């Protein structure tokens, strides 16, 4: 509670403790970080599911059934840009989509490694907690909305409001990004190898946006920051790991941060806690 004093105004005499001032995480605390119903899977055990003629609910159920049987690698054939495919997977898994996804694809996931050999529609990987997602073509708007953790990679372009409201994790875009990228972002990092359209980082609270090209304009609260050596090395490694052919060297990237101290997110997100505890 250090630094927080009782604030009295005409409207509010509540004692504001501040969420982030509470030390709610102890590394010694005994917390079970596995989900109920998690299954041990073998990545060498492989199966495929054909999405032709079945709806999202049925496909998602089939994925769960395969996980239950211990399959660690699942290939989805003919996804046909259907909506809400592969959502809510809270398990280690190697998931490959042989085609494009519609809206809300692979949302609310925690753990799997996903490859999409196609395009993704609006709100892909929304609320993702951990894991890795690689999209081979382009992504629609709200890519990685409210992202909490993990790596979200698109090799082509991403639409408007990429990383809106994100609270952790990394979004890496091989091409360009649309307007309002990083809108209201609270934590995490966005890397755009190409250009960014208008109002980048509008109303951002915290977090960092790295841009290889040029942002068309900065939104309210977004200001240029200074790159340090660690960040250059981190960028280099991230881009190399994602196998993105970025024409701009990491040292030439520009860094943008929040300009106003409206935040205090000193504590760790659940996904980060998991990282520490292994």
């Amino acid at each position, binding site marked *: 509670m250090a630094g927080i004093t009782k604030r009295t105004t005409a409207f509010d005499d509540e004692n504001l403790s501040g969420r982030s001032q509470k030390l709610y995480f102890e590394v010694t605390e005994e917390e079970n970080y596995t989900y109920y119903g998690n299954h041990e899977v073998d990545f060498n055990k492989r199966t495929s599911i054909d999405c032709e003629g079945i709806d999202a609910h049925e496909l998602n159920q089939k994925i769960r059934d395969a996980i239950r049987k211990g399959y660690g690698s699942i290939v989805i054939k003919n996804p046909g840009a259907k*909506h809400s495919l592969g959502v809510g997977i809270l398990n280690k898994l190697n998931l490959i989509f042989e085609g*494009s996804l*519609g809206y809300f694809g692979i949302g609310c996931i925690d753990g799997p490694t996903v490859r999409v050999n*196609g*395009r993704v*529609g*609006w709100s892909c990987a929304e609320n993702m907690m951990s894991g890795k997602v690689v999209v081979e073509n*382009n992504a629609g708007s709200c890519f990685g909305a409210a992202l909490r953790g993990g790596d979200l990679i698109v090799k082509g372009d991403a639409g*408007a409001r990429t990383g809106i409201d994100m609270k952790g994790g990394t979004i890496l875009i091989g091409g360009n990004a649309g307007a309002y990228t990083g809108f209201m972002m609270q934590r995490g990092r966005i890397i755009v190898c190409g250009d960014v*359209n208008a109002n980048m980082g509008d109303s951002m609270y915290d977090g960092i946006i790295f841009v290889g090209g040029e942002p068309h304009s900065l939104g309210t609260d977004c200001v240029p920051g200074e790159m340090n050596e660690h960040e250059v090395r981190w960028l280099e490694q991230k881009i190399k790991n994602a196998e993105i052919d970025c024409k701009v060297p990491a040292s030439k990237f520009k860094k943008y941060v929040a300009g106003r101290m409206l935040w205090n997110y000193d504590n760790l997100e659940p996904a980060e806690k998991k990282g520490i505890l292994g």
Partner: protein
Amino acid sequence: MCGIAGVINKQKTVNVGEQMGLMLQGLKHRGPDSTGYAMYGTPLKKGFVMRFKISENEAEKVNATVDSPADLKNRKNAVDSILKKHGAKVTKESSSTPYAFRYIFDFKGDLTDLATEIETVEKTEILSIGKGLELIKDLGDANTVSNQYGLDKFMGTHGIGHTRMATESDVDIKSAHPYWAFPFEDVSVVHNGQLTNYWGNRRVLERKGYRFNSNCDSEIIAVYIADKMANGIELEKAMHDSLDELDGVFTYVVATKDQLGMAKDHMAAKPMVIYESKDIVACASEEVAIRNIFPHEIKTYDPYEAEVKVWQA
């Protein structure tokens, strides 16, 4: 929410009715209230094709009208006599429902005068007049409307369509999209979104003498674009202007006798996915609609904010 779609086949006449039907059926979940098609067949060398309705298909009474057969007969006779009075000679006549008709007629007079007088007949609305444009809209999903009007074999170059979830006005035919830009031949529009300066713009256009048949905000886009084009402005420029002059969140698709265009607002708040190849361009609110005509994997993309695109047939 609403779903919009458009398709244009470059220098080729195909079964565009089937293409649009498949795409719009794929968008049914975005708007189940009504479905509309604006399709462009081979342009007539002589005369015009007109689609009109003489009654309303009320939402509560699907496939039924509140008007008696005698009322409908009287209204149709009134339309026929107005056409005759203006010197229009009907060469072909057909109807799929008791309240909707398709006429092909030879005419050399003033189209605005004719259209205006036809619409003085009670409950009568011209859905479209053009050389190639045929606009069909009714309550129900894409398959329902297509079957009702026999659209699955419509041969043409391009078309646009709409599945409507009513938010701003009633569930009826007059509020269904697409909108024809009265009285300009062959201009039609479908729209997904909300326009917030509708009434101000409507008053400006009404003062110029344009009539609005509904209170639906989308209708203004068609009239706005047609007004600009009537003043010699290119379609693409008119669409760029609309991004600054129309306020709100919107994505719309517009078609003329040989062009298809799309525009997205500055906020990019409404979706659009585009597939382009050398033979065909298809755009829709969701990729799943385009995939109904291309079952194999295709490379698609989202246009960015304030983007305008126009394709030639």
